[in-house]
């Protein structure tokens, strides 16, 4: 079937099997491999993207269901390599990543949090990220990054 949607502000149209999951559509059909797959039980959050501005686990969503909708992935965050999204900058500045595998999902989830709650507390960040597993960092620097990213987003950086 044909699935047409807006991906990172550009219109795309893909022919795919109706059973295709959004994560697979992005990675396999569209070669957008920034969205990662870390589990098969909707537990890890490596696959988080935005659907109409809200974070969703793309491994659990049928690609067909995004027809006509707006999807944003990690590849759509930065304007250029010199103009990162403030949350991306915050993760870089605060050592919020090690192997980088959980990072796309962490970024997408965190931006959604800050969109909803521009001034989250440390506890709120930890609670919100409960659905995103990172095996490398122990979370401390991720939390620090999100708090810094939130501040930068508030300042409109």
């Amino acid at each position, binding site marked *: 079937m044909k699935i047409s949607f807006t991906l990172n502000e550009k219109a795309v149209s893909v022919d795919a*099997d109706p059973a295709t999951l959004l994560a697979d559509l992005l*990675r396999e059909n569209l*070669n*957008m*491999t*920034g*969205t*990662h*797959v*870390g*589990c*098969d*039980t909707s*537990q*890890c959050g*490596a696959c988080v993207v935005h659907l109409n501005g809200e974070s969703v686990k793309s491994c659990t969503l049928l690609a067909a269901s995004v027809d006509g909708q707006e999807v944003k*992935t*990690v*590849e759509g*965050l*930065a304007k250029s*390599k010199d103009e*990162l999204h403030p949350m*991306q900058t915050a*993760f*870089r*500045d605060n*050592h919020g*990543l*090690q*192997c*980088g*595998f*959980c*990072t*796309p999902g962490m*970024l997408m989830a965190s931006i959604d949090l800050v969109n909803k709650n521009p001034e989250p507390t*440390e*506890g709120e*960040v*930890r*609670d919100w*990220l*409960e659905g*995103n*597993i*990172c*095996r*490398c*960092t*122990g*979370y*401390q*620097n*991720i*939390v620090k990054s999100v708090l810094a990213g939130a501040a930068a987003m508030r300042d409109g950086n």
Partner: protein
Amino acid sequence: MKDFIGVGSSPKRKEDLRFVTGKGQYVADIKRPNMLMGAFLRSPHAHAEITSVDIAEALRMPGVRAIYTGEDMRADEVGGLPVGWAITDRNGEPCKEPLHPAIAVDKVRYVGDAVAFVVAESLEQAEAAAELIEVDYKVLPHVTGLVEALQADAPQIFDDVPGNLCADWEMGDNTAVDAAFENAAHVTSIELVNQRLVGNPMEPRAAIGEYEPERGQYTLWTTSQFPHVVRLLMGEFVLGIPQHRLRVVAPDVGGGFGVKQFHYAEEAVVTWAASKLGGAVKWVAQRSEGFISDAHGRDHVTQAELATDAEGAFLGMRVKTYANMGAYLSTFGPNIPTNLYAPLLSGVYRIPAIYCEVKCAFTNTVPVDAYRGAGRPEATFVVERLVDTAALELGIDKIEIRKRNMIPADAYPYQTPMVVEYDSGDPMACLGRAEELADVAGFAARKAESEAKGLYRGMGVSTYVEACGLAPSRLAIQMGARSGLYESATVRVHPSGAVTILIGTHNHGQGHETTFAQIVSERLGVPFENIDIVCGDTDKVQHGLGTYGSRSLVVGGSALNKAADKVILKGRKIAAHQFEADLEDVLFENGEFSIAGTDKKKSFNEIAGAAYLPYDFPLETLEPGLEEQAYYDPVNFTYPGGAHICEVEINPDTGIVTLDRYTAVDDVGTIINPMIVEGQLQGGIVQGVGQALFEHCVYDDASGQLLSGSFMDYCMPRADNIPHLVIEPLSTSCAHTPLGVKGCGECGTIGSPAAVINGVVDALRHIGVRHVDMPASPNRIWNIIRKTRTRVAAE
């Protein structure tokens, strides 16, 4: 002032830009022309004979190109998966090393053992066809528990391994220990389980094999921590591919923690299948497949005793451990609970006599091998639980008993009774500083506050020392390693003065691209941004042993430092030629070559340029070019250590343990990049906390099935389980590495499980609890509290 980013600073990591923009390239992201997809059919039984495999119907499915069984690989004379580090038992006999076929032949020995490999045009086609393969099994009795496996009536897993005993191993002086126990005023005995874990790096394992028949060239892309070792093990021992025809690439890898430092069956299968089909074949593990095919970690049962005098001075220690090997030996399997375990049983204490025996057992479970810390967390857990229990029994404060027995700073180098000699350290200072930072003095008040809320609060202390920087080859080979464990590095200076480093370690989260660039920036004065790192590709990097055992900076960084020395020497030779001066008179400082006492000087870039434009070099004595390679073999292990103090709060109604405070003071030697070191410690601590509170890999003994086979059942630590960690370095310089570094990747995981469990036991002490096995899950704690209450009520 330095105008370069060198040692001791924390620049932004070079690797991060590609990761935050989604441009990392992991194996699963790679596509090759006309690539086929593979899926494994895995055994649903823990132990069974394969009586027949019928692939006829599956083979007729659309898109299916081939289906391979163990029989096909055997017929093609594919070898078994080799062991890289074997051990010798107490009688001097080699450990049992049964054949480990990449795909099972005749028999399956654990749930998840590969039975067939389907290659098709798409993954969906491969998976659909795998379901149509008809395997007839004759199910056999199985055993998953390691103590049970060694009992006389246990099912036999291999015909040629009597009693399922891989090795009965020992270290230490049994007679001296017996004497120490005879003279003891007090003996503390404990029994503990170091539960089985699944390492679960967030990137599942994956491999792509490719064969170009016209060139006779093989390539394997794999999620590996040590691509050169995979090339050696798979090329030489499994597939018989000449090394120069096999390229192994480990690109961006999403975490390792030991899980990716083994040569896995899937790597050999995709490469072999690619050679049969003349193209590329890809396999990516699903997470649930990873649970039943990634090597697991830990899984010990231990009895330990500590002999003390009346004042709590340690006199001797006796340890008996059962260690689970799983169904086959993984690459380093038997080495972990023996050589990487027993030598650390002295901890940071003076213990005159120690004896340890280890029985390694085969069971019908996934093979067990190194997982972050590998043997050393297990040893630390034994030592620190013993010490805590002894303190309780003797009525001595837990910090006081540790201080009474600690190796004082002036006693280093310190020879333990267990082979290793600690070169440097100051455990007393680490513990003292941790006490201050953790506000031990304020604990009583916090405990009273918790009590007022109906909560139990406990404080847990742990010290640790580890042996890492694997490894001095001479010692490693005595201990059974089948290769030296040196490392290699090349510093390639380009005509512009920019540098490419080619190094045999592998970066999968540790920030090597940054740290190694800092070392070279410091040594050569080259701007940090002009230095790039290449690793993980056997066609680009000369050689290497990879990343594990906290060795990258210690061994690889030392090789890099040595290569930088050689570059400086060569640069001085070029400068001497250009200045028409003697080599001895040429100095190199702050990125400049100069002649002492003159104003003659040339920048590093000028000399680099000259090296490649050698119109008048005396070619017999001075070759063009500025590129140097060095191999470094450490003279000893390194011994990072430290002290961790935590506080837990337990809700007696729910059994939930909340980790409330955590303080760590760690001695990792000289620090190159403080930000990265702190990140390594944070991540390590949380993995150890995961073991202490959450993670448990459980087999159902009756069915032999893995019960904790997904993130739904295997509880990983999450952001909301962890408090803000207070971490401070306290460095003593390593006496034998040129940079003074000791390694830091495993420290946190080694120190934290004992600290947390000691805290949990402390919180439950008032209701008579003396030990709690890991993980201290709500269910376990609630049951302990309920049982104690029922007992107290009945009394």
